[in-house]
């Protein structure tokens, strides 16, 4: 009983699956066939045996065609969940990279979801899960990991096609985890109190568990006078990693040296005389001593976010951009080098708080696997929407001012700490 679907080319990619068991009374067979059609595929039932008695199992062999290899893979993944399995399950196919910094044609492009590849009959979980990469397999250690295009070396064994690759999507309820407060990922109108409490709880629990919190921040943290709050979070052990650009560090250091941010006195709100030069003078001073760490160790830099990072062992990564002044000597100006450092720094991160930066938030979102909780705080809803559009679905967005947000988070942390102390004393 062949069934055609208009958008499936007759010679399109094909896979044969088998479903057996009680597939008639349970309506599993019609469900599988409907699922194929609903995703633009077509099918031909090659064999069907219907059990004669109530206790007899039935069996169907279905040939499925998809409009494209990608769509066929989606259909196969869907019907597999209902028990229709590929008749000839295969190991993933490997092709040896022949060009430095490029995948072989038809390489498998990764998602940020947990992924497995089949090696000699075994499903092996892929390490360093990251979207938009390829998968390189080390036959010797039987390990597989995500590798960015530019990091491919001649001789790497790269997975091609979809055969032998399985993706286990993060369940929505699971990925939401502690963030049950929102049914929609971006919230502009909802009460912020609950959300802030949950962020504080997450920070607190990560610290308690000895986990790593990554903060991704933009210069607005300094412009809005929120730097003191962030310094406090760092001092109290709530931040272990910082990602930012030249601007955050520059204005933070400008503030430490001159009391201004972009030439404006944060205390008084008025422009300082020749204040527009302050950030350049700040950058220059750091360049003269070689690095932010040197400036702290020589007693030149005595306060601010960067100072606290150095003093409290927070590893920071400053990634450059084309419009940077200076930049500070610590800024990594080679984009690929910066990505690679960030990639290394996101490993082991259990919670990521993104504050007031679109560029660095999206860059970080691209690197994080789907199971790392992310909260993105921005006055502009489009930052959060952009993150989700690029596949970082696990992001919970909070549209609010940075300053009151951080202040409230610290208040919540205070009460969590107080409650924990109270319990400990009993």
């Amino acid at each position, binding site marked *: 009983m062949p069934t055609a679907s208009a958008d499936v080319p007759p010679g399109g990619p094909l896979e044969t699956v088998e479903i057996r*068991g009680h597939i008639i009374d*349970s309506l599993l067979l019609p469900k599988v066939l409907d699922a194929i059609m609903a995703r633009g595929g077509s099918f031909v039932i090659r064999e069907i045996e219907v059990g004669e008695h109530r*206790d007899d199992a039935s069996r169907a062999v279905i040939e499925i065609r998809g409009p494209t290899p990608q769509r066929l893979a989606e259909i196969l993944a869907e019907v597999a969940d209902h*028990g229709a399995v590929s008749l000839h399950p295969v190991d993933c196919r490997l092709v040896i990279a022949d060009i430095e910094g490029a995948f072989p044609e038809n390489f498998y492009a990764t998602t940020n979801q947990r992924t497995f590849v089949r090696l000699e009959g075994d499903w092996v979980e892929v390490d360093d899960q990251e979207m938009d990469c390829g998968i390189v397999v080390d036959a010797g250690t039987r390990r597989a990991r995500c590798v960015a295009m530019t990091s491919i070396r001649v001789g790497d064994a790269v997975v091609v096609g979809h055969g032998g690759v399985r993706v286990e999507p993060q369940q929505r309820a*699971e990925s939401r985890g502690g963030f049950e407060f929102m049914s929609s990922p971006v919230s502009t109108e909802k009460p912020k109190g609950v959300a802030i409490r949950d962020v504080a709880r997450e920070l607190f629990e990560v610290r308690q568990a000895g986990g790593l919190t990554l903060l991704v921040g933009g210069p607005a943290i300094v412009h809005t006078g929120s730097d003191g709050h962030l310094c406090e979070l760092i001092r109290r052990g709530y931040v272990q990693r910082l990602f930012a650009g030249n601007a955050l560090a520059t204005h933070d250091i400008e503030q430490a040296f001159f009391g201004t941010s972009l030439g404006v006195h944060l205390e008084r709100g008025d422009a300082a005389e020749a204040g527009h030069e302050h950030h350049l003078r700040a950058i220059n001073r750091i360049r003269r001593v070689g690095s932010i760490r040197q400036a702290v160790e020589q007693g030149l830099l005595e306060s601010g976010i960067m100072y606290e990072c150095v003093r409290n062992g927070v590893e920071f990564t400053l990634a450059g951009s084309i419009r940077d002044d200076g930049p500070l000597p610590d800024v990594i100006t080679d984009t690929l080098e910066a990505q690679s450092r960030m990639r290394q720094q996101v490993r082991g991160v259990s919670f990521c708080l993104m504050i007031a930066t679109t560029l660095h938030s999206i860059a970080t979102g691209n690197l994080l696997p789907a199971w790392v909780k992310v909260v993105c705080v921005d006055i502009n809803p489009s930052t959060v929407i952009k993150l989700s559009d690029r596949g970082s679905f696990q992001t919970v967005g909070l549209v609010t001012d940075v300053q009151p947000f951080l202040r409230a988070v610290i208040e919540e942390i205070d009460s969590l700490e107080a409650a924990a102390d109270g319990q400990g004393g009993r």
Partner: protein
Amino acid sequence: MSGRPRIAMCSPEFYGIEYEINPWMRRSRPADGPTAAAQWAALVGLLERAGASIERIEPVEGLPDLVFTANAAIVHRGLAIVSRFRHEQRRGETAVDAAWLRGRGFEVEELPEGMFFEGAGDGLFCGETLFAGYRQRSDAAACQWVGERLGCRVIPLELVDPVYYHLDTCFCPISPRRAIWFPAAFDSYGQTAIREAVEELVEVDAEEARRFACNAVVVGDRVITNTGCPSLHESLAARGYEPQATCLDEFTKSGGSAKCLTLRLDGEDAAAWRGP
């Protein structure tokens, strides 16, 4: 084999919310140990008064969900197919359950590699048919495998709402021809299949479903549920059952209630194979 109904239970000494593997669990909303112990003991009391004999699995530190004995295995006569849990956090339970069941004389069997099935949580007999939940925890292929192994008709049912992540949270056979259910936990295929296969269905509303109305323990005419399910109790009373409520809110924090805390060893009242 008739006699007193036999139910396996595990006291909540080491029960707690130590991880989050379903939408109910929040580490920030811990269970209160003494209250949990009292609620569990009250359930034991009701079951014993209903005539059941309770057989205890020794609790194990570090296995907080071992209390949910429904997930230990699916039992069919002398055979127990032990669970293979989807979540790593619960996988340590299997060895404990297997050893205990062997000690009780059951033939213990494991699922083939690569399959997940979470015992009576996802496998419930109504008459001669095994109803089996999949997608959230168990998988469809495993449901079919269990049906084949037990030589019975199996109806795999996709669980579409992660809140009702085990079949026993949304479907409960109370006699060989009758079951309690919450239809919205299934898609239209599942709803149709259930309506075709079960003679009489007692529907639970959304509010009572969230109070775990479907997570009921049946011993003869007694149907024991969490508190907060008055409409269901009314429907059951009208059909000649004796519904009983006991508060199990410390356990619903983990996504489990009365039924989850029990494993019937001699066949559920609703299972045709149990015999007279």
